[in-house]
């Protein structure tokens, strides 16, 4: 019996030992990024190509933009790829990041129930549409999680002259969750919701929701990439991180971003390709 226990203990011990050594066979970087880039399948499409070209593995931690910036600010990531320009500029200005490179863009879309209780279908002005939602007190699902999409939504409410926080819990529902979880909630409630186009296009549980408004210039959604400053955090894998950034903005990286499509429609548009 003792033998049996010993064998079991050795087996588990080997597992533990295995864990300790498994991690350093390949150079890697930690990329703090948003759920939209991960959930849309873009990273699954382009990152293996980068790893093939460079031999560097990219470990993506996909969280909201706010949390991604906090991770990078604590030195827990080497590269940051997010979508909220003011926060990105502040990150660089504080010396936490080296420099912001524009990578790609797409747009936000307003998604809502096909029954359209706030009558926004046909509207082209996002501010008018949001005012209509607030006026009719139709359900609206907000991320409420300090993500890039949440920050964008708040700035749109402010521009529209609506203060929805006062109605939180009534028609304005803050989920405090990622884009996908918020979309699941919106589908179940029949609520309007602001989403980035990529997450919506790849979302598998659309239910009765559809895009009710798109194309307003205010819905522009740019993504930037920043190397975490190695002068602030000595452990940052600067050369590998910069190699990744250079690759992303190179013709090869940009072409791959442009080639990525969901249902034959591109969802991200490269920023530095001249023949766009």
């Amino acid at each position: 019996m003792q033998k049996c226990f010993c064998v079991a203990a050795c087996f588990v011990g080997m597992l533990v030992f295995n864990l300790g050594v498994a991690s350093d066979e390949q150079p890697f970087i930690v990329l703090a990024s948003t759920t939209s880039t991960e959930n849309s399948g873009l990273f699954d499409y382009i990152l293996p190509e980068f790893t093939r070209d460079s031999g560097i593995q990219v470990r993506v931690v996909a969280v909201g933009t706010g949390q991604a910036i906090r991770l990078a600010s604590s030195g827990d990531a080497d590269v940051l790829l997010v979508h909220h320009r003011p926060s990105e500029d502040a990150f660089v200005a504080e010396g936490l990041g080296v420099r912001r490179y524009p990578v790609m863009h797409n747009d936000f879309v307003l998604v809502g129930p096909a029954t359209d209780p706030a009558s926004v279908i046909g509207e082209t002005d996002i501010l008018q549409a949001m005012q209509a939602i607030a006026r009719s007190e139709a359900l609206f699902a907000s991320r409420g999680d300090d993500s890039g999409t949440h920050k964008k939504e708040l700035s749109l409410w402010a521009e529209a002259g609506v203060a929805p926080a006062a109605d939180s819990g009534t028609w304005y529902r803050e989920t405090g969750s990622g884009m996908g979880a918020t979309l699941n909630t919106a589908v179940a409630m029949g609520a309007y919701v602001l989403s980035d186009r990529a997450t919506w296009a790849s979302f598998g549980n659309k239910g009765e929701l559809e895009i009710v408004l798109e194309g307003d210039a205010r819905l522009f959604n740019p993504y930037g990439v920043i190397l975490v400053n190695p002068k602030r955090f000595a452990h940052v894998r600067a050369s590998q991180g910069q190699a990744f950034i250079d690759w992303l903005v190179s013709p090869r990286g940009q072409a791959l971003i442009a080639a990525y499509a969901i249902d034959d429609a591109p969802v991200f548009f490269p920023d530095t390709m001249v023949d766009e």
Partner: protein
Amino acid sequence: MSEVFSAVATAVELVVGLDPDLVEIVALSLKVSLSAVLIAAMVGLPLGAAVALVKFPGRRGAVILLNAAMGLPPVVVGLIVYLLLSRSGPLGEMGVLFTPTAMVIAQSILVMPIIAALTRQTISDLHEEYDEYLCSLGAGHLQRISTLLWDGRFRLLTGLLAGFGRASAEVGAVIIVGGNINHVTRVMTTTIALETSKGNLNLALALGIVLIILAASVNAAAVLIGDAASKRYG
């Protein structure tokens, strides 16, 4: 209901087809959770036995604390371990955040009180049966602890299994300290959370079914081994 059936079909497909991604994720889940249970057992078994057998001031308080710690919220443990392992935290130098090691640390903390509390209960009960015998031997604390742990080994298996169940089912801690990185720290529960957030409810449910089957198999194996061994060795 049809969603459940199609999820079952997807689950069967994944398992029968030995989907390589699924195999990798299941293997990592087992590795992380079994490692956490092993580490937690090395601390929790002696600790639980010591609390059961050694009289010291504040023992009732220690028992209450151990029992309460069985319900530690995984997300809080995850957050604390994150703050410790972050590059800006006291253990940042180790650079283990977003690795399986960080996940094992978090799960060990979650599992240890479960093993310790259940061990304390088991050893307490055993102690009543064995008290006279141990007294007649004139056994000291260390000898009592090791004797009772060895004699109670089959009953203690339940505590280890409860710990494994807790570790393999939790998502709150591992998603914070592991980061759910594909091919590095992605385990069953974080995959289920991810697929749910992508709206792939069918796939998420199928993975849930696989996880339940896995947990049931580990439990069944442990019970069968325990039964066979206790028949042979009493």
